[in-house]
């Protein structure tokens, strides 16, 4: 690290020297500035809390900035060094305005949480001894499960500070030919690299064998965007076309874990698991490709009007599974001025169609244990059912058609006052309400929305005022109502219709009286057998904002902002509502030139209220 710092100092010194030398030439110009400093950093708490993105070590920092003119060439750049992983540099080149090119690089550290999995809690050995909900589970000949069990927490990567080094570089170049300046071709490349380690926690067992494992995953990701196209500017028309290719590479190796077995007295669970005593992959990040074509046009029309329209087509492919989705987006907006510049009106229309593939889930493909062939499992589980019993067609919850139209206006009611408002109607039609369509007719399909169509009616109204030159203010109100907002249909609560898939209870399986303590332990309740809907998406949203700024002089400015939000959802059954209050006071003072004091206080109180439901058995 020390060597690296010295290298940076040498680079800075080099530019200072070059700057002095170039500045002596009479025709060309060279401007250079250098800043150097030293930062002191101390910390005494969790690194992710006190320095999630900041360097946590003291050291020198500095930067160089230069601009040069050499004939028709104009070029320059800057670089700034903070520490070895926190730095940036950039450069630009302009040749007679014919070629314009820019480049920039930026990097930093992102520290992420290390969940220590109850390391500091009072636990025995590697887990909690927790109560089992049913003191006994009797399979007819012996007790399979009883009393207290242990919930295990294993951190396989203790002591590691998880952090990801993120860097981004961008380069763009445009070309404008003097002989035909109306078309400007352009190409740009953006590359973001993320390297480091992050924690992944996962479930290595089921229920009584409950076992949470935390381990480190290598992060080695690269997102590359290549965009090429051009812009046509001729008279009243501006049009552009760009094609973008995004490539997301994941170079990290796949991660495997030998999942716990649930043998012995807990073998009752075995027939419910896709894998146990077996090695399987976890924490997978799929590679992705995205292709996007975008066509935009703007026309300046008579009577102070403008028409803007765009069409975007994109296709995203998951390279790991070959699943893909397409999206077509159409947009148009007409804006005009009326009443001698006093009234601006803008109307827009948007339509998009997102089409994601449905997927057939054949659990037998994943099944490592091969339940059907496992005859060692006995008891009231699903030993008698093949794993294919649960196969289904996964309908994508992403697919949808969205239509939106709206109008906005700004009316100057007086020289210092303007009234702003708007109305938008938006309609989401999801292709399907169903998330799972089971092949087995004995199983009712799952869905996540009662009605796949949501309609939004959105209104907004604001008043901007500049009562005096030193006092400005804005008060605004926004409301929207969503008919059938997004929700987890029948996601919570348990009704009276107990449902037994494969229990020994016969015609009335709700209580298995063969148990020493009668229990419905092995009943399965799917969404369709729950009774209440749940949502945290507002059906009604009200927001009132007030912001005022007082600037009595060039050295003093004060701002007060108040905000109240009320949201509720009476469409769902969980009684969800939210009240948020926010108040902020900011003061900016400049007692002497180049010394500023900025101080602020912000108060926010959010209270979300909802019923929550503890299912008797979550499936």
């Amino acid at each position: 690290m020390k060597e690296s710092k010295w290298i940076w100092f040498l680079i800075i010194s080099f530019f200072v020297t070059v700057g002095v030398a170039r500045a002596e030439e009479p025709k060309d110009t060279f401007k250079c500035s250098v800043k150097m400093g030293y930062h002191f950093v101390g910390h005494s708490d969790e690194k992710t809390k006190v320095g999630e993105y900041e360097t946590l070590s003291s050291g020198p920092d500095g930067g160089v900035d230069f601009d040069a003119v050499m004939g028709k060439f104009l070029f320059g750049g800057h670089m700034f060094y903070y520490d070895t992983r926190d730095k940036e540099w950039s450069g630009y080149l302009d040749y007679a305005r014919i070629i314009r090119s820019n480049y920039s690089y930026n990097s930093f550290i992102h520290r992420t949480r290390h969940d220590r999995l109850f390391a500091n809690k009072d636990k025995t050995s590697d887990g909690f001894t927790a109560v089992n909900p049913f003191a006994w589970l009797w399979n007819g000949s012996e007790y399979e499960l009883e009393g207290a069990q242990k919930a295990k927490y294993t951190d396989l990567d203790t002591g590691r500070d998880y952090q990801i080094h993120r860097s981004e570089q961008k380069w763009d170049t445009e070309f404008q030919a003097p002989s035909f300046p109306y078309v400007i071709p352009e190409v740009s490349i953006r590359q973001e690299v993320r390297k480091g380690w992050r924690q992944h926690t996962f479930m290595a067992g089921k229920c009584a064998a409950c076992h949470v494992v935390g381990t480190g995953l290598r992060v080695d990701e690269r997102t590359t965007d290549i965009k090429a196209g051009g812009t046509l500017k001729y008279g009243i028309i501006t049009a552009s076309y760009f094609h973008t290719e995004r490539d997301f590479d994941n170079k990290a190796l796949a991660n495997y874990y030998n999942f716990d077995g649930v043998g012995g007295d807990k073998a009752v669970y075995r027939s419910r698991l896709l894998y146990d005593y077996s090695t399987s992959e976890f924490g997978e990040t799929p590679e992705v490709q995205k292709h996007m074509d975008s066509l935009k046009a703007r026309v300046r029309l008579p009577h102070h009007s403008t028409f803007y329209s765009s069409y975007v087509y994109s296709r995203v492919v998951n390279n790991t599974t070959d699943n893909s989705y397409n999206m077509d987006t159409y947009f148009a907006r007409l804006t005009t001025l009326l009443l001698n510049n006093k009234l601006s009106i803008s109307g827009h229309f948007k339509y998009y169609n997102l089409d994601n593939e449905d997927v057939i889930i054949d659990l037998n493909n994943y099944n490592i244990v091969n339940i059907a062939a496992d005859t060692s499992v006995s008891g009231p589980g699903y030993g008698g059912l093949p794993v294919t019993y649960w196969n289904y067609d996964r309908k994508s919850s992403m697919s949808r058609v969205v239509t939106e139209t709206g109008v906005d206006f700004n009316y100057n009611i007086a020289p210092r006052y303007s009234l702003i408002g708007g109305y938008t109607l938006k309609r989401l039609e999801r292709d399907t309400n169903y998330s799972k369509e089971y092949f087995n007719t004995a199983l009712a399909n799952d869905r996540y929305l009662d009605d796949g169509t949501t309609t939004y009616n959105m209104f907004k109204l604001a008043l901007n005022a500049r009562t005096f030159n030193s006092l400005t203010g804005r008060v605004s109100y926004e409301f929207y109502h969503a008919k059938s907002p997004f929700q987890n249909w029948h996601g919570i609560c348990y009704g009276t219709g107990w449902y037994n898939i494969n229990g020994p209870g016969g015609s009335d399986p709700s209580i298995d009286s063969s148990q020493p303590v009668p229990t419905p332990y092995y009943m399965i309740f799917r969404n369709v057998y729950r009774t209440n809907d749940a949502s945290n998406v507002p059906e009604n949203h009200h927001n009132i904002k007030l912001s005022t700024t007082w600037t009595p002089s060039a050295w003093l400015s004060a701002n007060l902002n108040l905000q109240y939000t009320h949201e509720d959802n009476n469409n769902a059954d969980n009684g969800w509502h939210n009240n948020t209050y926010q108040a902020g006071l900011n003061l900016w003072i400049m007692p002497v030139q180049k010394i500023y004091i900025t101080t602020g206080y912000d108060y926010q109180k959010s209270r979300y209220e909802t019923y929550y439901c503890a299912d008797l058995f979550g499936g």
Partner: protein
Amino acid sequence: MSKVQRKRLFFVVVLGLFLAGIAACVSMKDTKRESENAKLPVIEGAKYVGSQACAYCHQDVVKDFSASIHGRIAAFEIKPSTEVRGCEACHGPASKHVETGNPQYIINPAKLKPVQASAICEKCHTDKETMDWRGSKHALNGVSCIKCHSIHGKKDKLAYRDKLGYRHKHMKDVLLVKPEPELCLSCHKDIMAKTNYPNHHPVKEGKMTCSDCHNPHGSQVNPLLRTDERKNELCLKCHTRYQGPFTFEHPPVVEDCTICHEPHGTVADNLLKQNEPFLCLQCHGIHFHANLRPDTGTIQSNPHGSGYTSVVPHDNSMQMVMMTRCTQCHSSIHGSDLPSLSIPGGGSRFTK
């Protein structure tokens, strides 16, 4: 050709015909006269005199201007409809102002209505991210270009922190009157507060700017998001690992990222609107274990002990186990191609 392809082709053809029709119908002369984006004041009797006449009095402005992008514009970059380069391209013919020194005889964008001031810039700036400026929220809220941009130019690329104490991120020279994010936060104070919450995007650390996610010049996705598709596609530009499409989907994830996340800053980790498990419990029932308290008497008297029963559980052991972070177990909550453990769950529990 598929139905979708035909629809796309139809749209492109209609758009092309529309543009061609407009171009054919409106002459360049008419364009200049009628199609300005606002009715601009006219200085009667004034003529163009060239920028040198301005420099005589406004030396300080001209010095910065000559080095700025506006001062370096080449002749071929100017639209044919623009009559003059330099100061008068925006300020109008200056002869009467030069003769009299009277500020009433020059167009001063700072004294115009916002829509008029912006119309001057729109004579040239109709491309890239300014294409939809006139319908943008900023334009419709009376914010003019010069509220944010210093047309005459001046920039300190090495300023380390702004007046808010936020670090700077390098940006292309776009002639801002203040650096980002200070510029944006001078109006959006409620957002400024959120960038200081314990969990935030690295805005104040100078690794992101507001304009990385927002296009202040207009967008078809509220609130001025830098995407032409839908909100989620913007987030996935950097968080591409969650792009999918996944075999096992979590519906709210593909519905809208902001159902669970508040991108400007939160008290809870991971920019979640609330801490887990309370966020999750708004839509899901909690596992039944969490409501259990041990019947210690039964457990201690259990005649079928097999090892574990010798340790009597803590009264709140189940709450400690189950009511932590749901994502401890459901770690692939954004979607997964790997099935979870449980067969009756159909592999869709995001535990791998």
